[in-house]
């Protein structure tokens, strides 16, 4: 039997109809995925350093600049040589001016918060130091 023009166009229309149920499923799943994954994946970053002990250091470690982090009257101060720095900007300025080849040793005192230590490491990295050692006293 031959199809008339009207019948064949109806068939064509029927053929190109979108599978709505599957499409809605797909869109909902994608929407669900992006909403959930966007909220749940809290971004964590890292500041990597090399662990070093205060005893038995190598000679290259001894040649590095020492950055002391201390607490003075409840506030965190940074000491490099005879310079005492009280804020991040001045620390960044001093570290940028230092030679970077020998690296830097970060030595926080016991009472300072971890946030101050992380800040010092971050500033050292921003200043261009690639060799950053974390010195643990009394090992």
């Amino acid at each position, binding site marked *: 039997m031959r199809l008339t023009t009207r019948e064949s166009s109806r068939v064509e229309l029927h053929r190109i109809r979108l599978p709505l149920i*599957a499409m809605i*499923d*797909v869109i909902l*799943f*994608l929407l*669900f*995925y992006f909403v*959930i*994954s966007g909220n*749940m*994946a*809290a*971004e*964590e*970053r*890292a*500041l*990597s*350093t*090399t*662990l070093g*002990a205060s005893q038995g250091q190598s000679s290259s470690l001894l040649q590095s600049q020492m950055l002391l*982090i201390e607490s003075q009257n409840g506030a965190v101060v940074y000491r490099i040589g005879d310079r005492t720095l009280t804020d991040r900007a001045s620390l960044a300025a001093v570290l940028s001016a230092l030679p970077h080849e020998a690296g830097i040793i970060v030595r*926080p*005192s*016991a*009472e*300072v*918060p*971890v*946030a*101050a*230590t*992380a*800040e010092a*490491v*971050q500033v050292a*990295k921003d200043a261009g130091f690639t060799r950053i050692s*974390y010195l*643990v*006293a*009394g*090992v």
Partner: protein
Amino acid sequence: MIDVILLLIIFFTFTSQFSSTQRTPMDLPRERGEEAPRAATEMVIDLDADGQVKVLGHEYDLQTLATLLAGREFVVEGAGADESGVAQPIEVVIRAHRDCTTANLNALAQVLLRAGVRKWSLATSAE
């Protein structure tokens, strides 16, 4: 079939997401840090504001942690080997609370040093 494939994709994506969200909520130091590539031989240690050490949600004292690290080194042997067959050192990530005193961090660092850990990372929050 599309439904099944999508469900499988979502399942595997979510399980990988959940493995990272299993980490204990922690007020980390707010620094930009660096992109932290997840190594196969990575160990994440939580250090809360009171100096309590946790690994995968379980509390440990430093003595027990030292034993755990020693055991871990044994397990990693071979699994963390590079192409030349040399075992890679364990990379340790410390998730320390931003207000935790460095005394606690140093005590943990001493344990790590004794266990032979030479490279570690301090986790930071970019927010």
